[in-house]
């Protein structure tokens, strides 16, 4: 046995072998993103939460807002406006969250606008319970410090299911997520599959419809923000037809009633730019298509003079 009898030797052999295996897996695994933004998922949330109050337009909402709206593309249209994507996964449009989004607006800006990407899910109790915003906000400080410090290895050491690894190696399916400092998280599923999230949408509204209490609280907060001088605008971002049907039939969402209620509370409804858009997984616009969608949406937000100037360029 020789040196193998010594525990310290065994410990070091395990450490060396494990390190070799980890490096090998990290090397062959699918990369998390395709654009090399230099920002890991963990640091991305920290950057977003700690964003200063220097923006003219803040985009608030759940993963559809998070993935569909690219602030850089919107800034190209909305000249001189600083845009932040404050979207989070599985977020609920609670007063607390909306206030946090509004707090990112520059108090001295004359164009303070909050654009809310509304989805039926964002007004359901399950989203309130599993809110990604709350999760990131309430993360322990030691974990935040660790995430910040370990930024370079966070992505390569991310968990990966064996099936996903196999699909990547065989080239049958791979998904990418890129994290941008302006709060946009781009997603891409290769090949695109507009039914990928259908199973989730079939389940999500089971015993989990829009909560009247949350709905009222949302309108109340909208009214309060509008009264404070913030321009509140609301848009329903696109999804694949199968998922849209689930929202329409099972969630208890009534778009026309919402539009009326929003107007009554000082907010404006913005119609989503017509597609077709590449909905990569059924509920999020593909990374390649999201900038164009963002520009088209920004055109609908822009005051006429800015738009004319932009088009004129």
């Amino acid at each position, binding site marked *: *046995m*020789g040196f*193998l*009898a*010594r*525990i310290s030797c*065994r*410990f070091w*052999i*395990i450490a060396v*072998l*494990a390190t*070799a*295996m*980890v490096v090998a*897996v990290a090397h062959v*695994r699918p990369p998390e993103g395709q654009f090399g933004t230099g920002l890991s998922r963990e640091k991305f949330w920290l950057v977003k939460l700690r964003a200063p109050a220097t923006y003219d337009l803040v985009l608030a909402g759940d993963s559809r807002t998070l993935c569909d709206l690219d602030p850089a593309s919107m800034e190209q249209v909305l000249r001189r406006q600083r845009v932040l994507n404050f979207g989070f996964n599985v977020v609920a449009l609670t007063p607390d969250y909306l206030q946090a989004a509004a707090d990112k607006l520059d108090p001295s800006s004359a164009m303070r606008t909050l654009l809310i990407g509304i989805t039926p899910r964002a007004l359901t109790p*399950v989203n309130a319970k599993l809110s990604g915003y709350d999760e990131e906000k309430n993360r*322990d400080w*030691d*974990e935040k410090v*660790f995430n910040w410090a370990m930024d370079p290895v966070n992505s390569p*050491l991310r*968990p*990966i*299911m*064996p*099936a996903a690894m196999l699909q990547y190696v065989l080239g049958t399916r791979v998904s990418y997520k890129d994290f941008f400092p302006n709060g946009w998280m781009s997603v891409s599923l290769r090949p695109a599959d507009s039914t990928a999230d259908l199973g989730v949408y079939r*389940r*999500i509204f*089971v*015993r*989990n419809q829009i909560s009247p209490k949350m709905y009222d609280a949302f309108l109340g907060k909208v009214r309060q923000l509008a009264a404070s001088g913030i321009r509140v605008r609301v848009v329903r971002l696109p999804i694949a037809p199968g998922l849209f049907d689930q929202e329409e039939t099972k969630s208890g969402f009534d778009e026309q009633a919402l539009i009326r209620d929003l107007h009554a509370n000082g907010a404006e409804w913005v119609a989503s730019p017509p597609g077709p858009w590449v909905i990569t997984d059924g509920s999020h616009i593909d990374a390649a298509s999201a900038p164009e969608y963002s520009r088209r949406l920004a055109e609908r937000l822009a005051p006429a003079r800015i738009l004319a100037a932009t088009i004129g360029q």
Partner: protein
Amino acid sequence: MLFNSRIFVVFAIAFFLFWPFARRTLNRRWAYIVVFSFFFYGWWDWRYVFLLIGTGMVDFLAGLAMERRPEQKRAILMVSLAANLGTLGFFKYSAFIASNVNALAAAFNVSSFLPEIALTLPVGISFYTFQSLSYTIDIYRGHLKPTRNPLHFFAAISMFPHLVAGPIMRAAVLLPQLEEDRRPTRGQLWMGLQLIAHGFFKKMVIADNLAPIVNEAWNGQFVAASFADWWLLVMMFGFQIYCDFSGYSDIARGLAKWMGYEFSFNFKHPYLSTSLREFWTRWHISLSSWFRDYVYIPLGGARRGELRGHLNMWITMLLSGLWHGAAWTFVIWGAIHAFFLSIERITRWPERLRRFPFGRAAALSFVMAQVAVAWVFFRSASLHQALEIVRGMFTLNAFAVTLSRTGLFFLGLGIAREVYVWHRPERPQWLPLRTAVMGELAWYACVVTACIFLRGAGSAFIYFQF
């Protein structure tokens, strides 16, 4: 502080870095353990450290008083029991008792008169209360001499590896170990490493990956398509709680070994039991043996006739259920086990079944099914929910399995791991020892790699809530 948190890694490194120097003299060793353990506990909420100290001091002083005044030791024990069970009752059961009393009053048209205050339950209170209780009870019985040093006492009661989720270490077992300067042996270090690796694998890979699927189902977000779905979901919960809790116990035992101490076994492959009685000798052994020694046997055990034996067993199981949580679902969980145990005692079906071909496998499956039905009540938020799920399990409507493949994969992995560890083949003669050891080291490297890449979303250990 959670074993599966990053801060614990820093904590453990700091602890073991200076442990070889700290353990050399008695007071330094005990003080070192106490300081680190209080820090470990206080990381969650430092205010509750004072509760731990307060209840512990009552038992420490009760121990000394019983030695000094043996003629009053019964009264002193009562004070200790009242302090410990009173604290446990106040934090854990006051809202439950108040709501039930109020409900009963409402049934007689009397308005609610007890306030239902939902208190934050101090982490691990049920564990350290039982650990502390064993100290005074053992002194009362003359099985243990009280320690005169509070540091010695608190080092045993609050030692961080077992403090918040067991194994429930009795003072009589731990106090003598803490009196010795125990340098961990080579075997202990190696065994400790194995236990910690397996513990993290069970918790991070199996339990944490099964948790979201189980939670989704019990939160009403998953609509099971068939009875097969429900059985698989309950099996998933069974493996989640087993891997979660036994994983914690393994890590605790491994850390203790690195310190040079020995903690008792808490799990011995319970799902491979072929009778429910055997299951209870393999599941949460430190708790079941605590109840056996401090409740069941003092009640008379099975010595006072068969009927009394059943009654004592029922009392013990109901108390065990209540120990887990202040809800009727936990009491019913205990009652279901008691009911199945009574049937087993009367019919002796496991012995009879095992005589048949494949009888052992049939007995194992039947025990698993009984445990699974009981788990439904353990996991459910209400009796109504539990009954709905049990109905789903026994409504033979369809065979379709609609559960996610991820969940099935990790359930399969949990079962395969359990069977492999139980039937681990011995080294064949032709394989050189050196090669076999290298193979084992490679295996543990794979376990570490799996903990990194197959880890689920980190969550607290289930038994922390108890």
